[in-house]
C-alpha cells in the first residue's frame, strides 16, 4: 500500500501518518506527506500511489475541480475535511470515504479498512465517474454507463451510446465505489443492472448477460448463482414484464 497524505496542517498530517503506521504496518509500503495540491500532482505523476488522503478546503471556488481531479486518478481518495456538509457531494464524485475532522483512531482505522479489505460502502453514493481526458476531466453520469470492462491496470467504461472511455482506476477499485446497481458479473466485467435484460444459459455451464442493444456479456461461473438469485428477487429494474428473466 502506497499512501500519499495531502495536508497542510503539520500536526494533522503527522496524525494520519502515525495512525496509518500504527494500524497498517504490514500493508504499508510507503507513506509520503505533501502540503499542497501542486506538489501532490507532481508526486502522483512520478510515483505510483494507491491511496490519497486529501484535505480539501471545499469552501474554496475550485474545491470541486480538485476533487474531480482526484476522483479521476488511478488511486483511491479518502477525503479528510472539516467541511462535513460537503461529504455528500464528495461521495457523488466517487471518493472511497469521507473522514470528518476531528477524527478518532477507530473512525480512521475503519475507513482505511475499506481500502485494505477491498470493501466499499454497503450503498455507495457515487453518481458520476470522473474521467481524465487530455487537458480536462469529464464527468460521466452512472446512468449513462452500460458496463465496465477491465483493461489491464485501467478500465474501459462503455457508455449506452457506444462510446468507450478509459478510466485510470482498475476494475477492482472502481467496483469499490460503485453503487449496488452495478454488479460484478465476471472477473473482467461490471454491468449496470439497470440496463440488464436477461441471462442466457449456454451449454457447458456458460452464462451470458444480455444488456441493451442485444449485447451479451460473459458471466463468471462463480458469480452466476448470486446474480440469478439477485435478479429473481426482483431487485433489478424491470423495463417490461419478464424482460429481466432467465432464458434457456
Amino acid at each position, binding site marked *: 500500500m502506497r499512501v500519499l497524505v495531502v495536508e497542510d*496542517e*503539520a500536526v*494533522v498530517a503527522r496524525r494520519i501518518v502515525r495512525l496509518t503506521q500504527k494500524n497498517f504496518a504490514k500493508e504499508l509500503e510507503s507513506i509520503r506527506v505533501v502540503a499542497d495540491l501542486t506538489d501532490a500532482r507532481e508526486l502522483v505523476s512520478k510515483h505510483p500511489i494507491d491511496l490519497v488522503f486529501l484535505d480539501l478546503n471545499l469552501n474554496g*471556488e475550485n474545491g470541486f475541480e480538485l476533487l474531480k481531479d482526484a476522483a479521476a486518478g488511478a488511486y483511491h481518495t479518502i477525503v479528510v475535511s472539516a467541511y462535513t456538509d460537503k461529504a455528500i457531494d464528495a461521495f457523488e464524485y466517487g471518493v472511497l470515504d469521507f473522514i470528518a*475532522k*476531528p*477524527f478518532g483512531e477507530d473512525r480512521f482505522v475503519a475507513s482505511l479498512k475499506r481500502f485494505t479489505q477491498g470493501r466499499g460502502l454497503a450503498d455507495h453514493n457515487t453518481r458520476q465517474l470522473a474521467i481524465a481526458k487530455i487537458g480536462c476531466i469529464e464527468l460521466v453520469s452512472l446512468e449513462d454507463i452500460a458496463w465496465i470492462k477491465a483493461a489491464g491496470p485501467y478500465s474501459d467504461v462503455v457508455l449506452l451510446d457506444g462510446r468507450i472511455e478509459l478510466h485510470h482506476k482498475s476494475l477492482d477499485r472502481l467496483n469499490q465505489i460503485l453503487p449496488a446497481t452495478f454488479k460484478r458479473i465476471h472477473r473482467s466485467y461490471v454491468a449496470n443492472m439497470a440496463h440488464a435484460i436477461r441471462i442466457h444459459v449456454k451449454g457447458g455451464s456458460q452464462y451470458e448477460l444480455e444488456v441493451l442493444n442485444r449485447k451479451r456479456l460473459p458471466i463468471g461461473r462463480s458469480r452466476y448463482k448470486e446474480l440469478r438469485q439477485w435478479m429473481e428477487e426482483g431487485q433489478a429494474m424491470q423495463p417490461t414484464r419478464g424482460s429481466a428473466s432467465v432464458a434457456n
Partner: protein
Amino acid sequence: MNLECYLMRIRWLAIVLACSCGYAQIIEPILYRTGDDLAWAADEIDESDWQAMDIRDQDSILQAFPGELSWIRVRFDLPADDGSAKDLCLTMVAAADIYWDGRLVAQNGRPAIDRENEIAGLIDRRIPMPKNLLQEGTHTLAMRVSSHNRKKNRAGFVFYAALQEAAQVPGAISTPTFIRVLAMGMVFLAGITFFLIYGFNRQRSSLFWMGTLCLIVFALVLAESWRSLFGYPYPFHTLRLLFVALLTGLFGLNLNLLLAARFRFPWPRSLLAGLTLCFLSTPVFSETYDGRSMLIMNMTLAAALVQTIRAIWLKRPNSSITIIGLLPCVALSVIDPGGFMDHSFFLAFAFLLVCLLAALAWTMRVERLALEQSRLDAARLECQLLKKSIQPHFMMNTLTSLMEWLEQEPAKAALMVEALACDIRFLTEVSAAKSIPIEKELAMCRSHLKLMAYRNDEDYELETEGLVEHESLPPAIILTLIENGISHSNGSTGAMRFKLMREAGLKGRTYVVDAPGRVQTQEIVDGTGIKYIKARLQESYPGKWLFLHGPKLGAWQTRIEIRS
C-alpha cells in the same frame, strides 16, 4: 394720483411723505410756514407768505418739517355726504394740534417751542370726525406741529393725512396686520419646535440655527407690526426702525450661515465677516434705516442665492429645494423692493421655511437610513468576525491537532486548550467593538500565534516597530492579516516572523504588516478576510483609508493607510 403706489416707491428714496385721500380730494399745494400764530388755524387766511411743499422733493419736505414749531395747511375737497362716519387719519413724526376749519379737533401730544416743553405725539393718530364738519365743499386742515425729538436724517419723515371710513370696531386690526400676526404665531411656534427637537438631538446644530432663524423672523415681524398693533410716540419710530435693520442683519447672517453649514461650505467665518462688513457699510448708501434694512435684505438674498447656486453646481444634497424656497423671496424683492419688507417678506419666508424644513426632513431620513445601514453593517461585521473564527477549517483542524497532542503529549494538549480558550475569550471581547486599542489587538495576535504554534507545531514571532500607545484600530484587522499569512506559510522551516510597523505621515498613519512566505493567491486576496478588513476600515474611516498589498523582499506586505 395713486398715492399708495407712490408711497411705496418713494420709501426707497428714504424720506417719505404721503397725502392720501381715500374719500376726499386733497387740493395741492400743501402749504407750510415756520413760526407760530394761532390765527393760522383759520379757514381763510392770507397765504401769500406760505411755502408750497412738493411731496416729490426730499428737500422740500425736510424744509417743511425743520423740527421747530411750524404750521402745515392742507385743503380737502369733500364730496356730498355719503352717510358713513369718517375718521381723519394722520401719520406724522411730530407733536401736533389739529385744527379743522379753524376748530381744534384733536391734540397729538403737545407741540412746543422747545424740546423741554414738547410732549411727543403718537406716530399714528385716528380722529373720528363729527358729521357736521364734513359737509360738501372745501375744508382746511391746519396743524401746529413741532418735532424736537426727531433725529432728522435717520428715520426719514412720514407724513400721511387722509379721511377714511371710520373703523367699524374701535381698535380692530386690519387684514395686513392680521396676516402678520398669523405669520408671527407660525414662526414663533416653528422656532420653539426647533429648539425642543434640538434639545433632544444636540448633535444636530442645524435645528438650533433653524430655531434662531424662526425667532429672529418672529422678532422682525413683531418690530414691523408694533406700529400698527400698539402704536407709540413718534420718538420711538427711529428706535423701531433701528431694530428692524438690526434684526434684518441678524436674519441675513443666520440664513447664510445655515445654508453654508447645510451645504458643507468651508467658508462660514469669512462669510460671517464679509456679510457683517457689507451690512455695516449700508449707511454709506442709505441715510435712513428703512433704506438700510432694504439693502441688508437684498444683500442677504443675494448671498443666499449665490451660495445655493454654488451648491447646485457642486450637486450638494437639498440644493434644489433650497433654491425653490429662495426664488419667491428673490422675485418679490426685485418686483416690489419697497413693499417686500413690509408685506410679502413674511409669506415668502413661510414658503422658504417649508422648503428648509422639507430639506431637513430629507436629510434626517437619509441620515436615519445611513444609521440603520451602519448598524446592520456593524452587526454583519461582528457576525463575520465570529464566524471566521468558528468556521470549520479553523475549528476542526484545531480540534484535530488537539486530539493528536492529547494522544501523544497530553501536557502540550493542556497548554493548547488554554491558548484556544484565550483566543476565544479575546474574540468575544472585541467582536462587538467598533475599535480597540492597539495593545489589545497585539495581545490577540500573540494569543492566536501561540495557539497556531501548537496547532501547526511551528514557531511564530511577531515583531513590532513604531507603534503608538493606546491608538485605536478596528478589531482583528492585524489578526486577520496574520491568519492569512499563516494559512499561506506553506510549511517553511524555522520560525515564521511577522512584522507590524507603524509609519507616521503628514496626512495620517500607516500600518505595515510583513508576512513571511510567498505570494498569496487570488483566493486570499479576494477572500473573506480581506473583505472583512476593508469593511471594518470603511466603517471606522469612511473614504479615508487605503489598503495595499503585494510581494516585497520575499515577504507579503500589506499596507493600511489611514488619513486623519
